[in-house]
């Protein structure tokens, strides 16, 4: 399903349909996160990926154009790059532990410590919350800093858009 949606995004020309399909992709991945026991991630993905990012893309489409122009570039070189990278990635997974195996390094190293520690150190039922807000609190602080910076950047880029547009129109009308 996810692969089909992604391929549909490759083939589509209508950017509106692409925005919708990327929302569908995010929702499908949220479902996948639920089956992989990551309910918090599924919440966030459904809200942020399917919700906010679709709205942002639609807003951009409203300010720009709705359709993609067909290009006459040959897809050979990108396809080659992609296949080589994909082969390297798959080669890298050959040494990985089996899916869901309880004795994988990721499960035996610090993961259990957090699970045990958060019982009597933090006393919050949701371990993801306790790690996010307490053990890794500085990460979350850095994350908010990143979001704040991005927000300032977006505001600086977009601000005065209507003002500039009006000025352009006036200049054009003076020229004509």
């Amino acid at each position, binding site marked *: 399903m996810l692969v089909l949606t992604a391929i549909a995004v490759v083939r589509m020309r209508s950017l509106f349909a692409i925005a919708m399909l990327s929302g569908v992709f995010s929702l499908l991945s949220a479902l996948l*996160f639920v089956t992989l*026991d990551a309910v918090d991630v599924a919440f966030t993905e459904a809200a942020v990926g399917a919700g906010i990012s679709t709205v942002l893309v639609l807003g951009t489409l409203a300010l720009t154009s709705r359709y993609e122009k067909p*290009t006459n570039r040959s897809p050979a070189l990108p*396809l080659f790059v992609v296949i080589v990278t994909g082969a390297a990635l798959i080669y890298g997974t050959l040494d990985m532990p089996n899916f869901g195996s309880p004795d994988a390094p990721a499960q035996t190293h610090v993961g259990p410590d957090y*699970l045990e520690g958060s019982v009597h150190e933090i006393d919050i039922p949701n371990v993801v919350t306790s790690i996010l807000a307490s053990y890794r609190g500085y990460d979350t602080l850095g994350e908010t800093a990143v979001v704040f910076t991005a927000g300032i950047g977006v505001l600086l880029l977009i601000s005065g858009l209507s003002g500039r547009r009006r000025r352009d129109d006036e200049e054009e009308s003076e020229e004509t």
Partner: protein
Amino acid sequence: MGFELTQEYIFGHLNYWLFSVLMMTGLYIVVAKGNLVKKIVGLNIFQTSVFMLYISMGKVTGGTAPIFPLDMQIDPDVIYSNPLPHVLILTAIVVGIATTALGLALIVRIQEEFNTIEEDDILKIERAITQAENAIHGESMGGPA
């Protein structure tokens, strides 16, 4: 490399391979397509498949979501999936939407400046600008521009 291509091995690694395919689809969109909005969507697909790869590493067979019962009386037989990748990816999703928003804002600015969001057209306009500037520089140096 010491691995055998058994059925268990293939099914144990199929998830990584599928996510790699998804990742490469996203990368292909970013590299091959000229429309900037489409590039951003491809980048999002790439990003989400990386998230899926990480989350699938934290999954334990027979495990459940890492949320304890409310009375904090934990049954030692219950297996919980690894919460660390979840935390990491929660942070990554939010940072991802921030970068997406910034990219889309840049696209809006590009549209305003060049009146197009196709990479080919932008390159054409830039080349024309550079040629015009070079001609001016050449003339000011007295060369046959």
